[in-house]
């Protein structure tokens, strides 16, 4: 009798320990995911002149330092301009293409799908190198911003197209038919019904595309030059050449911006756009 009860309690205890160990294991990996980011952000507030963790004192001096650096201001401006322009292009052109893909049945539709979404499949390294190679051939490799914008369109356009396409395909076509029956012709319906319905997901897609463009290294590294550069590329160089926490402060600025975009997406559409395929 007592033996049975004892073995039951031991089993329960074993399960409890197992569950506890499991929880610790999962916690470890969660920390693993955010550790590098958290550490850099924390270190950027250091009062010391070296990258020390934990930082000995709290200070904002490295942010002041960064704000005064001209390369920072230039690179930040470039990155923002590139991201804005390439995302805008992506939204306008991508929405049109998404409309065709979502609602029109035409021969060659598969071709359009494959072509427009191909930059998502091809390795970024290859895209960067290919574009760079082509620019060198045309002796255009030093044009600066236009080259970077062209490269970044490859990041933003397929992404936005896919997002808007999914949003449009997911809406009830009865909404458009309802608009027709109420007297709206196709153009009016597009402006007043199709676009507004796809708007939340499209906005989220645009924000994500902007973020990926702003934070990109792989394609940018092939296209930067003396006339234009991006913030991530500059930070990369800065990490190699300086031992002080300057790049950490810049990183914190970048993380802060990314956080803002993340919250924007979370508030407007929710994180479910990441989990739904």
């Amino acid at each position, binding site marked *: 009798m007592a033996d049975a009860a004892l073995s039951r309690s031991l089993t329960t205890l074993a399960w409890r320990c197992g569950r506890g160990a499991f929880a610790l294991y*999962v916690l470890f*990996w*969660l920390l*693993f*995911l955010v*550790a*590098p*980011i*958290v*550490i*850099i952000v924390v270190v950027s507030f250091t009062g010391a002149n070296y990258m020390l*963790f934990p930082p000995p004192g709290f200070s904002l001096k490295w942010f002041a330092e960064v704000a005064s650096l001209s390369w920072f201001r230039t690179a930040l401006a470039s990155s923002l301009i590139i991201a804005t322009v390439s995302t805008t292009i992506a939204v306008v*052109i991508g929405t*049109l*293409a998404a*409309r*065709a*893909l979502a609602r*029109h*049945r035409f*021969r060659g539709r598969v071709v*359009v799908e494959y072509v*427009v979404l*191909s930059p998502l*499949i*091809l*390795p*970024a*390294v*290859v*895209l960067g*190198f*290919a*574009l*760079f*190679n*082509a620019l060198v051939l045309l002796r255009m490799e030093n044009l600066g911003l236009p080259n970077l914008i062209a*490269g970044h369109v*490859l990041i933003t*356009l*397929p992404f936005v197209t896919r997002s808007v396409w999914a949003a449009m395909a997911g809406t009830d076509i009865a909404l458009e038919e309802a608009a027709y029956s109420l007297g709206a012709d196709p153009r009016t319906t597009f402006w007043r019904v199709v676009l507004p319905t796809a708007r939340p997901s499209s906005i989220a897609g645009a924000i994500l595309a902007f973020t990926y463009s702003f*934070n*990109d*290294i*792989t394609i940018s*590294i*092939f296209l930067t030059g003396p006339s234009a550069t991006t913030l*991530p590329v500059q930070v*990369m160089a800065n990490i190699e050449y300086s031992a002080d926490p300057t790049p*950490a402060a810049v*990183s914190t600025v*970048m993380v802060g911006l*990314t*956080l803002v*975009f*993340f919250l924007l997406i979370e508030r407007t559409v929710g*994180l479910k756009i*990441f*989990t*739904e395929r």
Partner: protein
Amino acid sequence: MDDPRRPATAAWLLSTPALVLTALFALMPSFHLLVAAFLPVNGSTPTMTNFEALLDSKLAMQAFWRTLRVATATTVLTIIAGYPLALVLRKAKPRLAAIILVLVIFPLMVSVVVRVYGWLVILGPSGIVNKSLIDLGVIAKPLALIHNEIGIVIGETQLLLPYMVLSLVAVLQKVDPYLEEAALSLGANPIVTFLRVVLPISLPGLMSGILLVFSLAMTAFATPLLIGGPRVPLMTTLLYTYVFTSFNWAGAAAVAVVLVILALAFVTAQRLVTEAGLKRHG
């Protein structure tokens, strides 16, 4: 409206700008690269010399095998880390699940530079890990955790773990929780239920995630570049070196072609797995 009167010209008009931009910036340059890979340095007849040169180059072959090793290790790590994470996400209460989801998704959005920089600080010779281990007396000399394959694997694991988790979450969402309750009521304990009910149903999603992570690991560039350093090139960083250091653009083109073929192969495999999964489980 399936109105047959509606011409396809409208659709083409809508798609043309996107087609043109993509063709101009991606497809034509890539095609040019493809052609260049099959041309010898001085000549215009297609040959395989560039690819043969790769096979002959010790550096290139090492890079290839290293890429494979790193990708495999990364994929394995993402599975053993990602599956439990996905399971927890599935079962957790909404508030906890939201927090975990934030922790999984936010790193996806942060720039690679920042993440790698963080790893350099954590794993460097005077970094947090080494300093703690030395202070605790566990080791005498710092461990080499960066500028080598280990560092690359760690970096890529952190980069790609969210992808694995999200792939698994997507497929686990489709597993009917009542199935598990049925198994439990029939006498199976949680571990057995997992192995015999949840795991089999999630296999297509797991396969899809594996293919995704593996292919992303093989084509990752920024992480191996920044953590690995010049002494441990992968195929992607080798391409970069060929372009900017040794000016071996023919070799770079050949490597690019190999990378593209690999990427396409993985995407195709992924599609097949997803279709097969749909056929079996709907």
